[in-house]
């Protein structure tokens, strides 16, 4: 079979196998991708045979038409000019200043609020911010109820009219599989556990917060993923930001994708390791970084790196692109580095049996060293997990910040995860999953 088509910028000029012609008119008209020659020049020699991919893997992202881009910048320019005008008026007290400022007596001190930095916040975001952060008052299912609110001073303050707008089509939640409901098996099981265990654990995991429910959940998660052992944490963001510092430290190298989530970035920065960024989903960039890292070693001393960790995500939340996992694993094996896969959005959603991006590509879960994911999206609960070899998880049980200092998962939430996971695995006896 012909090697799957891939270009660095994920745009080609031929129509794709899966039927979507990525070369919309805009792509050719603004000339952005005209310069890209045939894919041969960009295919890495590891992948020529295409044997890494069991099915053709094509992703096409539409390029923005030039007119739209130019007009967007024109709009920004106009609003920036008006922003300067309004700031001038606020400075000279022609208009009342409505964002946070210090008291008059404190004006000579070191400034608390950076006025200049909030320029876009004050002048652009305030004008349109009534479209976000709207409070809902029902379960985030297919339809939600929203509280009505109005603003009389152009979005600086909001007041609630008291009415509720009903049955709004929900296109924004993470409720991918519909497990967040107020009736059904998940809810009944969670209610039963709530009456048994209560809502709060009131302890961290290492102290007194290790319930038998947690052990049951972790065994189930390990079985679901196909790994030896797993550990669950109370918050998905905290899973990343608190466990990466436990795994790498100074003298290690982190290779992180351009578009990684804030939790991965925060964890990487907190760890103190050297961070290098490779272009989004670009395997040539990653290989170049790996080669440089191994050849040159640490910056000044030229010693070899203690550990090289590659941070990728299963599905990138803002782009919607799926990581090229077979190539990443091939590179990881070739250059003997470790892989940390954040499957926040892809667990439960990808793959023939819902086991995530590893299942989607038909790979061995043991190839990924650290499989991380969250329960927030597909399972309709909250929290995160890390799965991997038993030694790794035992190490994390002792050394993770989240295990020592953060409260463990609440029992009804754990029961929700258990029920929904069993439903996806098909073990609850129904054919819903």
């Amino acid at each position, binding site marked *: 079979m012909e090697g799957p088509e891939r270009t660095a910028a994920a745009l080609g000029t031929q129509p794709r196998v899966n039927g979507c012609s990525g070369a919309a008119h805009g792509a050719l008209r603004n000339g952005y991708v005209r310069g890209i020659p045939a894919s041969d020049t960009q295919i890495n020699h590891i992948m020529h045979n295409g044997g890494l991919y069991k099915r053709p893997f094509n992703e096409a992202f539409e390029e923005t038409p030039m007119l739209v881009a130019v*007009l967007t910048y*024109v*709009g*920004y320019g*106009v*609003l920036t000019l*008006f922003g300067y005008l309004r700031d001038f008026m606020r400075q000279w007290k022609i208009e009342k200043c409505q964002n946070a400022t210090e008291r008059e007596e404190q004006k000579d001190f070191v400034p608390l609020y950076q006025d200049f930095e909030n320029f876009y916040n004050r002048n652009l975001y305030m*004008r*349109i911010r009534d479209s976000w952060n709207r409070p809902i008052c029902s379960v985030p299912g297919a339809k939600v109820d929203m509280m009505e609110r109005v603003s009389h001073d*152009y979005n600086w303050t909001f007041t609630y009219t008291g009415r509720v707008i009903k049955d709004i089509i929900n296109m924004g939640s993470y409720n991918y599989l519909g497990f967040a409901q107020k009736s059904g098996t998940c809810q009944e099981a969670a209610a039963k556990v709530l009456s048994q265990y209560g809502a709060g654990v009131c302890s961290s995991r290492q102290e007194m917060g290790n319930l038998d429910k947690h052990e049951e959940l972790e065994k189930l998660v390990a079985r679901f993923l196909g790994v030896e052992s797993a550990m669950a944490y109370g918050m998905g963001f905290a899973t990343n930001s608190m466990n990466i510092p436990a795994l790498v430290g100074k003298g290690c190298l982190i290779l992180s994708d351009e578009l990684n989530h804030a939790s991965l970035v925060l964890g990487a920065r907190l760890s103190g390791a050297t961070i290098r960024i490779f272009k989004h989903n670009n395997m040539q960039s990653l290989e170049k970084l790996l080669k440089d890292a191994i050849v040159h070693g640490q910056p000044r001393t030229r010693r070899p790196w203690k550990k090289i960790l590659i941070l990728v995500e299963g599905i990138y939340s803002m782009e919607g692109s799926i990581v090229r996992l077979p190539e990443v694993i091939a590179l990881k094996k070739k250059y003997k580095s470790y892989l940390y896969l954040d499957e926040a959005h892809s667990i439960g959603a990808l793959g023939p049996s819902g086991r995530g991006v590893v299942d989607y590509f038909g790979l061995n879960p043991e190839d990924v060293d650290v499989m991380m994911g969250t329960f927030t999206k597909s399972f309709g609960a909250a929290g995160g997990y890390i799965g991997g070899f038993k030694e790794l998880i035992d190490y994390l049980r002792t050394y993770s910040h989240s295990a020592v200092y953060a409260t463990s998962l609440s029992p009804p939430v754990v029961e929700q995860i258990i029920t929904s996971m069993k439903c996806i695995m098909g073990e609850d006896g129904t054919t819903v999953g």
Partner: protein
Amino acid sequence: MDTRGMRSYLYWLYCQFELITCSYLMEPWEKVLFYTFNAAMLLALLYTAYAFLPGHLGAALQSVLQLWGGQQDSQPLPLL
């Protein structure tokens, strides 16, 4: 009926204009300022075009013709 369709189409065009120039987001007095400024610039442009364009075009045409005529001294000038 046709005026109804025409008016809604014109309103849609006006909405597009407001969205593109971001005047949809402005407070009323800002919109007045913005439209006045734009209208003034447009009028100035039109006046300049009306006052100076014929003169400039004529001079340009004359210089082009001189160049052409200088090259083709042996041949008679083509009738325009």
